[in-house]
């Protein structure tokens, strides 16, 4: 925990610190899910999830689940901290107030095109050191289609280097 409040979005007062460490969550025939472009703030971090598919031989995965009831047929993302705290994201049913210690996983923006789906996510608060597990469930599958790990220690270390230009 950082001691900061945990806002719904990154604050405008800071220049984020970029952390290397791209991860591939899924790599199967004609389908890849990548997470990277990680930026760290005092209150949390953002990352991009990029899903690519070969349009000649693979159908695109289902769109993001809008609520828990859609998890039996749609796609959703889970994040798990080393201390056991976890969150499954749904675009309209992410309920931070029911889980005040987080993590809170928020959809920031997204774009799609033929063969590609990009989404940007905000996670708050920062994790403790250790593996931060990202898991993606495709097309309503109960078992994760793939898992990748971000380095929690690197995120915490980067947050210490962030400078704020004015008080939040």
């Amino acid at each position, binding site marked *: 925990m950082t001691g900061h409040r945990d806002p719904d979005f990154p604050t*405008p007062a800071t220049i984020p610190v970029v952390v290397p460490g791209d991860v591939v969550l899924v790599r199967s025939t004609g389908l890849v899910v*990548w997470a990277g472009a*990680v930026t760290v703030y005092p209150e949390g971090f*953002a990352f991009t999830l990029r899903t690519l598919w070969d349009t000649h031989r693979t159908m695109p995965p289902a769109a993001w689940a809008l609520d828990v009831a859609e998890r039996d047929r749609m796609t959703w993302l889970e994040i798990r901290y080393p201390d056991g705290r976890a969150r499954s994201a749904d675009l309209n049913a992410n309920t931070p107030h029911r889980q005040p210690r987080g993590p809170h996983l928020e959809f920031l923006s997204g774009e799609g*095109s033929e*063969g590609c789906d*990009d989404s*940007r996510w905000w996670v708050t608060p920062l994790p403790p050191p250790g593996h931060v597990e990202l898991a993606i469930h495709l097309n309503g599958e109960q078992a994760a289609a793939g898992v990748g790990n971000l380095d929690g220690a690197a995120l915490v270390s980067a947050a210490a280097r962030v400078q704020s*230009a*004015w008080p939040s």
Partner: protein
Amino acid sequence: MPGDEGWAAAPPTWALPVTAATTLALVRQGGVLASVGPVCAYPVGFEFYLTFGFDTGPDAEWRASATRDRLLGFHARRNEEQESATRVAVGFAEGVAADSVACMHRRPRPGEPLLRFAGGDSVILQSVPPLRAESRWWVSPLPPPGLVEFGVFLPGAAGPTGTASMDAAAILEAAGRSRALWPAPEAGPL
């Protein structure tokens, strides 16, 4: 250039990006922040994240000159938008440069790189906090060795409001680690 090998109109869907851990501060004055980072490289170009933040405090300096609700906006389709558009520029070491507003209205000239909005937030309105926008920009082809300069022009600014540069070597090194996943589809029109 369009039609050349090593050039693409958008981030490729057939290769994974590789993130270069770069953070550049372009603007840090008057209650306005602008920064570039991360940069994600591909075999045929790179994408960079551009983040703007405005101080939401009642005494922030930028408020004295902000006459419109649109504090920041990259689109320049309508006449009013062309006057109030925020411009982004990228320059390569060999002296060529790309401008976001110019690239919106015409094809790149021979030798010019392409600079195109690739996603994220495209506008900040005073009336809709938080006053923050993170956008992504696509540049193609890859730069030659030397410095790559990023610049932003806030509305009404004759010169760049802020600039910063990085060594192209970091982009080229990351691009060298980007791998093709499957054959590229045939290129469409620009």
